[in-house]
């Protein structure tokens, strides 16, 4: 049984829908801004890829209550676009919503804690009721009427990729006909400060896979695919954008916040996804890298790619040079980007790449380049050594 993509939606700093993101990518317009002072006044000096809309503006755009956490608002915008673009009537089928997120309703929880930290009886307690990651999915699923099965995965930065893989397995095992799957995460002071304590933030624009890279820029966004069973793809003239031909999850099992230098987990995830599709590494036309621009990730991912693609290195790039690192959403945002690359038969640029990493002769794409692509691999690796790769093929 095969699983196909019938629709998709995305919002990230470079654009608020698929078309807007594609033109930004092709025209090399990134969405990373100079200052983070509106997220945390004491942390003003870091570039962040924040979406230009306020919470009230996002609420007005999506028609939801402004009391929703920002993570849910970003998610519902991408999920609404995905649902509409599929042209499918979800009510006619068993339709689920499967989402990855790491911060959940943290932005709203933080607002409570700023008051609470001054006075323990202060703060609106209702601000924490949507704190749980699962509440975010519940809100979005109800809004797009994909409620037959709703679940949430939190495996750090691979959350959305794991959500897409699990959704495919729900369809293949006959438990769902349609699954809207991907992820959403808003920028929060919690994650900005967290990555800063780990010294993982670059105080300049990030430089994925470059020898001079210093760290990541935090981003936010959401990306969802509408996955459908083979039967639905065939009947109903439903739109088919691509096939999700492979996926694999593996533990790197090295360190809580670092990948092994040789990239065991990344290697196994990529190899597993390619094997599932019955392909060989030579068949892969483009890799959308995890490419966070931290010294450790890019080294580990680079080494794994050199080993697995020893015969022929595919075109590759990290679009985090446009979006920043959208954490739990990144697998969803980049799944949409991967399908856009496949549909448009184009590589996507890796901004600010100039010098390859020492000992790792990999040269990411610096321009959008028209090439023949049959298969695109998308990588997501997270804390806890959680690695997941997705493989998209021309339908």
């Amino acid at each position, binding site marked *: 049984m095969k699983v196909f993509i019938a629709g998709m939606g995305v919002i990230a700093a470079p654009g608020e829908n698929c078309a807007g993101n594609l033109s930004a990518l092709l025209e090399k317009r990134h969405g990373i801004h100079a200052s983070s002072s509106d997220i945390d006044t*004491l942390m003003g000096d870091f570039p962040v890829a924040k979406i230009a809309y306020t919470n009230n503006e996002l609420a007005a755009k999506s028609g939801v209550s402004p009391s929703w956490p920002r993570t849910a608002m970003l998610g519902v915008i991408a999920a609404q676009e995905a649902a509409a673009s599929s042209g499918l009537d979800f009510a006619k089928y*068993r339709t689920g919503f499967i989402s990855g997120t*790491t911060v959940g309703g943290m932005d709203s*929880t*933080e607002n409570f*804690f*700023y008051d*609470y*930290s001054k006075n*323990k009886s202060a703060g609106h*307690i*209702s601000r*924490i*009721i949507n*704190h*749980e*990651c*699962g*509440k975010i*999915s*519940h809100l979005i699923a109800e809004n797009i009427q994909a409620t*037959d*099965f*709703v*679940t*949430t*995965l*939190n*495996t*750090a930065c691979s959350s959305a990729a*794991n959500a897409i893989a*699990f959704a495919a*397995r*729900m369809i293949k*095992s006959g*438990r769902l006909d349609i699954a809207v799957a991907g992820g959403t995460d808003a920028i929060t*002071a*919690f994650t900005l*400060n*967290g*990555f800063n*304590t*780990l010294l993982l933030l670059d105080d300049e624009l990030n430089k994925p896979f470059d020898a001079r890279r210093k760290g990541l820029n935090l981003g936010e966004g959401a990306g969802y695919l509408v996955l459908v069973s083979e039967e639905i793809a065939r009947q109903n003239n439903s739109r088919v954008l691509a096939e999700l031909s492979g996926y694999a*999850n*593996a*533990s*790197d*099992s*090295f*360190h*809580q*916040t670092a990948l092994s230098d040789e990239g*065991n*987990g990344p290697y*196994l995830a990529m190899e597993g996804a390619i094997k599932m599709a019955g392909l060989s590494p030579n068949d892969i036309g483009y890799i959308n890298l995890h490419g966070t621009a931290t010294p450790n990730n890019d080294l580990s991912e680079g080494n794994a790619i050199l080993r697995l693609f020893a015969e022929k290195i595919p075109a590759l790039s990290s679009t985090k040079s446009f979006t920043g690192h959208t954490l739990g959403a990144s697998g969803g945002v980049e799944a949409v980007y991967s399908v856009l690359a496949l549909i448009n038969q184009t590589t996507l640029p890796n901004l600010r790449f100039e010098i390859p990493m020492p000992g790792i002769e990999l040269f990411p794409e610096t321009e959008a380049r028209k090439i023949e692509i049959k298969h695109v691999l998308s990588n997501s690796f*997270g*804390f*806890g*050594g*959680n690695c997941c790769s997705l493989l998209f093929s021309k339908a």
Partner: protein
Amino acid sequence: MDLYINATSSISAFDSLQGLHVENADRFTCNEPDYKLIIDPRQLRRMSRIMRMGLASAIKTLEIANVQTPQAVITATGLGCLDDTGNFLVKMCDPDNRMMNPTAFIQSIHNTMGGQIAMHLKSNCYNNTFTQDLLSFEHALLDTIILLEEGSIQSVLLGGIDELTELKHELTSRLFKAQKESDGYYGQGEGSAFFSISGVKSPVKIETLILSQHANHSDIRDYFSNHFALGEKTLVLTGKSGGNSDEAYKLTEQSIGTKSTIAYKKYCGDYPTSCAFATWLASEILTQDVVFDTISQPQHVLIYHAYPDRPHTLIHLSGC
């Protein structure tokens, strides 16, 4: 495919089937084991309480199952690593004293336990973490069942973990006050329960997992009626908390009728992955020769959850 619970281990407020002692309490805090006997003390020093609880019950489960490395580690947690999340938040929100510690941030992520278990086992296995508030454990069990049905792997380590912290207790109490929670509420709880699951025949069989997709829960009501018609000795464990949300059980109460029923949260307290405790309790009841709450040796245990605005769930375990 027939699936079995080959081994289980739990840390909870509940001691053992022989020594029932927990009653309504303000909070149900775990009776924790001496972790030094289970986890390398050098590792232990750096671990938060929820990590200790999770890793210890995972190690115990694998020991009992005699499995060295499971082929998948699937964890469920409703609220994740609350102690580290809370510590980081409180310090971050105090502008005069921003002594934030990277360890708290690192260990605040929900898949900390799953990642730590894989690292402890030095395994490159499949690893996933579900967090769908009150249904997290059922969804992790669903992934377990699908993985084993797919046939590429033969054994899964499954666990459900949540911790109760001072801060959570304080804020939830405040929220309940605002929501006028009933005085009958048993109390907040916490716990960790792990399971080794495979197709290898064992005394506890997983008969079914139903996640209702019907607004009136007719699938679950039908399952109850059909099962009870068989006249077998059955115990029902419900996730009632003694609070306002128990209203949601009304729809199906008729189907359960006068069958032996236990509201298991009076032994472990109320927390998002308490279903993992119920599954552990059911496994113990099915395999140990004890009289528990006046019911001796049932052949079947049905674990039933009805939360407002959520699909109802049913897990059926049988002794064999």
